[in-house]
């Protein structure tokens, strides 16, 4: 079983990206040997109300059982608790908020309330550090990358919240992990999509210093080629147990708490 915890459906506003339909995503999963994907509505990230993409996302998940919906929750909107409740009713494995893209303080009161509510509801909160390399973003795409300090603040803001942080690189992960208590660090999971392999061997280093239990398979597809995650794992000398944990078991632990 291989689970991609970091996938999207729907078009990207800043450039043409092939393979954004649910059918194309499933085909890419078949091509790369992925059994299940946790999926968010990509254009919604950039909408004034990102939750307006959730209905279509849920419909996609109903039509494609291998796609598990990760609905967006915007804690700055008055209806956010209803959105969270709907996500729970849909048995979402996580909910997502991308505060810098919503234009809200990534560690402000609204995000802390959302973190607390996710902790209370026992559902992970997913956040992306970035979607594209900062050097290639569209000139009008000004949203800041998620600061590491915000992740530290959110994990400290509620003793129950579990965070899934995607698109983070090695320095970001190290800063947050070693800037947290062991108990806090044990409530954070990192997807591998932005972590370098050989010859810099960032992923191998992190697996040695932080441990395999904190890492989950994520691709960032279709914005990024899903082949990258598999290639990265194939270049490691992982035990079968560690590989299975990264590919599936850790995602299950993240989801089930």
């Amino acid at each position, binding site marked *: 079983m291989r689970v991609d915890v970091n996938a999207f459906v729907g078009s990207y506003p800043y*450039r*043409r*990206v*092939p*393979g954004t339909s649910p059918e194309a995503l499933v085909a890419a999963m078949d*091509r790369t040997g992925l059994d299940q994907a946790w999926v968010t509505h990509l254009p919604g990230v950039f909408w004034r109300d990102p939750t307006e993409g959730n209905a279509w996302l849920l419909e996609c998940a109903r039509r494609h059982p291998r796609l598990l919906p990760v609905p967006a929750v915007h804690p700055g909107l008055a209806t956010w608790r209803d959105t969270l409740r709907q996500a729970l009713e849909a048995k979402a494995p996580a909910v997502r908020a991308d505060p810098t893209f919503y234009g809200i303080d990534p560690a402000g009161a609204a995000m802390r309330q959302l973190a607390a509510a996710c902790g209370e509801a026992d559902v992970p909160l997913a956040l992306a550090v970035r979607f*594209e*390399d900062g*050097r*290639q973003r569209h*000139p009008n795409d000004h949203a800041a990358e998620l600061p590491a300090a915000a992740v530290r603040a959110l994990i400290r803001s509620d003793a129950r919240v579990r965070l899934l942080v995607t698109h983070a690189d090695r320095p970001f992960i190290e800063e947050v992990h070693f800037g947290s208590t062991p108990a806090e660090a044990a409530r954070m999971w990192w997807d591998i999509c932005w972590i*370098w*392999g*050989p*010859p*810099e*061997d960032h992923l191998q280093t992190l697996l040695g210093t932080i441990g395999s239990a904190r890492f989950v398979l994520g691709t960032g*597809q*279709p*914005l*990024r*080629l899903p*082949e*990258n995650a*598999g*290639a*990265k794992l*194939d*270049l490691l000398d992982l035990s079968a147990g560690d590989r299975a944990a990264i590919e599936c078991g850790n995602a299950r632990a993240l989801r089930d708490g």
Partner: protein
Amino acid sequence: MLIDVHAHFLHDRTPRADWQARNASRLSAGERVGISIHIASILGSWGAASPTYFPSPADVRYANDFLLALQHRHPARVRGYVAVNPNYTDEALGEITRCLDAGMIGIKLAASRRADDPLLDPICRLAAERGVPILHHVWQHRRRDYPGQEASDARELGALAARHPEVRFLLAHIGGGGDWLHSLPILRSLPNVFVDLSGSGVDGGMLEACLDAVGVERLVWGCDLTIETGWAKLRYLEHLLPSDELERVRWRNAAGIFPPDAFPAD
């Protein structure tokens, strides 16, 4: 056969204490991926004694000597680009001649001088005379100057390539950060510029855009600093291209760019 046209190694005078581990990691990962030949450069002292992108002639020489030694230690796996700083014209021309005579197979220009500067012309004339390609570091759509390098973008490399149609240029790391959508249209009308697919970027749609812009005939495979992204692109191309076209990207196009005796016979 699989040729990585964009690799780097480190040496004992670089700031990295782990330089040997990084070099070993590149070679061992290459074995796993199936890389037949790493065509590599070393950019001076990587900042230890002079800036990475503005290396002193002494640092250039030491790095090239180290790479030549590495090439001799791994004759089946490693080939070298002679890296030079074109601001030191006489030294650069002498270093190119010395290193090509010693077995290197191409020239690496990084970001010491803008690509369209006339100072690069004598280097290009020498490349033409010796029949070797130039791998040129490119910032895909440079919108401003960045500290530590006088980077060029595709428009500037294109100006150089137009002045030297007999020289084959490799536009470095299309996936290496920056707006590759800016670079590709510029290359359509420049048949002597090849697109090096290396870089950490694995953007969906990038390979399709490369194929659309320059065709399979002008794509060459590489990794640069991240071997897993090179492998990912290769795996995707296996899905995208028929086998004969895939072979072109894997090595045949590279074999046509470098001197005839640069690689083992097919």
